[in-house]
């Protein structure tokens, strides 16, 4: 009941014409950047941080949330009509969605993606509405030791579940943690790793790292691969509506995708890749036509698209109630909270209910707007796909340097941006995931703070992390997540060697 009262006052905030405008702007930008290859929600939020500094926090976060949701919708358009996924959450959609487009069923694929996204987004936002206050109650039980353990868990899961190799993920994570060290230590005032450079005393800005990795690194990689990759765009033709059969085959995957997406997004497990992959596998297992998967099965578009929207809502639950980012985009949102001097968590719900509930309410509105933008108006977005790549990437770099420069109005930031961009390119070539780096950069200093606080309270006794049952449980989970796959792999290797020895 309490929640419904809070939500309705949130609607009062979100429904003011001024905030409606920001919501509409957010979902429009979000859809556009979702459609455009080479630019995603994390990068867009990072670029908008300096610009939104003067804005009311409520309006800024309503816009940010709109961008986050919008990108999930827009990504599917690119995945279906072009053979490159616009966002990492659309990788799975691209497989069957593109096959459908080749068969002239692109419109149906887009429709099931948009309607599925709407249904999943709405159900998941509803879940967020009721889960977030519960998580706040949980957060009240947390002391510094538990927060530290939770952050360790988040850092390990983001690393362990992404990418092909654990050591590559860990390299990215530790690099991010190392970047987070740079600057003045807040508790003792001592400068760390600043090499006497004045501009480094404030630390390396999250925006610079995110823009460097996501814009500069990605553009360098795309420049390197541009000559060798062919893009094919499929025009929309034939009937624009889903047939009876399409509806029949879509509605269950939508619901199952939602059921997978929200909880996995809410767990500190990171991003939308896992729920979308799981959804694909589940649909394939349950389908009456598993042979169609890979050749244009509508279930394989409906399920994963629902899952990725639901996971976006899921990600917001730990972000708002615990201050815990579980994806790169959420990490940038946390940086946005810090920019306004706000700390997500139970206090935010108490002190800024307008902000929290206004943002949650705006998600319902944003979802409805997005359905409108992406179903009848999808033809407009398709036009974005024909922007010549040279101009698209040149434009991305102009805006990336613009965002980095306007942070502090100095060229040193551009130099750091360049260095991080080149490192990002190297990481991309060597298949090192970049998300752990961004999450590590922002969570590392917070984890250190909680760690030192916990030890100050326990008067230096390090056992505090193991004697608190919640903290112990979280740390054991984190250790298992790293160790179990390693042990399993070692066993598999040994078995293979045994098998070879027998031959």
């Amino acid at each position: 009941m309490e929640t419904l009262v809070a939500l309705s006052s949130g609607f009062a905030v979100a429904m003011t014409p001024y905030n409606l405008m920001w919501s509409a702007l957010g979902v429009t930008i979000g859809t556009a950047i979702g459609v455009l290859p080479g630019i995603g929600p994390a990068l867009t939020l990072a670029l908008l941080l300096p610009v939104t500094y003067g804005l009311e926090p409520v309006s800024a976060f309503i816009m940010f949330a709109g961008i986050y949701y919008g990108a999930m919708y827009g990504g599917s358009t690119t995945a279906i009509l072009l053979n490159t996924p616009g966002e990492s959450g659309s990788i799975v959609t691209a497989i069957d969605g593109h096959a459908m487009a080749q068969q002239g069923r692109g419109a149906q694929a887009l429709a099931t993606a948009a309607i599925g996204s709407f249904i999943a987004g709405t159900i998941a936002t509803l879940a967020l509405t009721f889960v977030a206050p519960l998580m706040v109650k949980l957060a009240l039980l947390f002391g510094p030791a538990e927060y530290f353990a939770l952050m360790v868990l988040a850092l390990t899961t983001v690393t362990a579940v992404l990418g092909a190799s654990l050591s590559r993920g860990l390299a990215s994570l530790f690099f991010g943690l190392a970047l987070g060290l740079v600057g003045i230590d807040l508790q003792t005032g001592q400068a760390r790793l600043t090499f006497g450079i004045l501009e480094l005393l404030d630390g390396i800005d999250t925006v610079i790292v995110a823009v460097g990795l996501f814009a500069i690194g990605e553009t360098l990689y795309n420049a390197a691969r541009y000559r060798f990759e062919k893009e094919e765009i499929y025009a929309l033709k034939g009937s624009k509506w889903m047939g009876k059969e399409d509806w029949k085959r879509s509605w269950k995957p939508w619901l199952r995708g939602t059921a997978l997406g929200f909880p996995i997004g809410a767990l500190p497990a990171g991003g939308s890749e896992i729920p979308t992959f799981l959804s694909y596998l589940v649909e394939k297992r349950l389908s009456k036509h598993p042979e169609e998967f890979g050749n244009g099965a509508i279930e394989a578009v409906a399920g994963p698209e629902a899952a990725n929207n639901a996971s976006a809502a899921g990600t917001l639950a730990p972000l708002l109630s615990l201050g815990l980012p579980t994806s790169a985009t959420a990490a940038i949102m946390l940086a946005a909270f810090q920019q306004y001097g706000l700390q997500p968590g139970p206090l935010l719900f108490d002190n800024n209910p307008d902000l929290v509930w206004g943002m949650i309410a705006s998600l319902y509105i944003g979802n409805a707007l997005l359905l409108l933008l992406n179903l009848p108006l999808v033809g407009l977005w398709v036009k974005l796909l024909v922007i010549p790549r040279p101009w698209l990437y040149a434009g991305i770099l102009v805006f990336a340097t613009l965002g980095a420069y306007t942070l502090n109005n100095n060229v040193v930031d551009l130099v750091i941006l360049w260095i991080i961009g080149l490192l990002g390119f190297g990481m991309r070539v060597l298949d090192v995931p970049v998300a752990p780096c961004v999450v590590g950069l922002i969570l590392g200093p917070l984890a250190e703070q909680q760690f030192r606080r916990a030890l100050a309270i326990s008067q230096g006794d390090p056992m505090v992390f193991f004697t608190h049952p919640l903290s112990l449980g979280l740390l054991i989970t984190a250790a298992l997540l790293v160790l179990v796959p390693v042990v399993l792999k070692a066993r598999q290797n040994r078995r293979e060697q045994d098998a070879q020895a027998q031959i």
Partner: protein
Amino acid sequence: MTTGRSLKIGEAGLGAAVLALGAFIAFETSQAPGAANAVVGPALFPYLISAGLILVGLALLREALTGHIAHAQGLELDGIAVVLVAVGLIIQMLLLETLGWIPASTILFMVVARAFGSRKIVKDAILGLALTAASFGLFNYGLDLNLPVGSVFEELMAGPDDAAE
């Protein structure tokens, strides 16, 4: 063009770099003056992170040497395009505060477009100019953020006043 062999070298380089970064952070931290009054000083986390980097670096080196590399089938890369983009960014950095945002970023726009195979130099220049001028107007007059006008132009504009004094 990059073959599996140079990727393997790159992979080993990654391991070595991570290892070196870990050692470097440990060294830097050991050089910093310690803070005595805190329960946990500012040095503990840097040491933990450098230990992590060193371990991961060793693991990466081992993977590279045993042949577990990404893109085992080889990955073709257009080195010239990468260099063009990187140089374009340097040119922008060097010219930004003297020539100003609009010319410096127009050059960046043209260089990046060229790296992606564009041969329409005039069109690229016009489009780049339009984009950078629009962003300059929006930021300096609409958002009160200062993109540099360029010291050269500032002097030109200030020129007559200086002469009068």
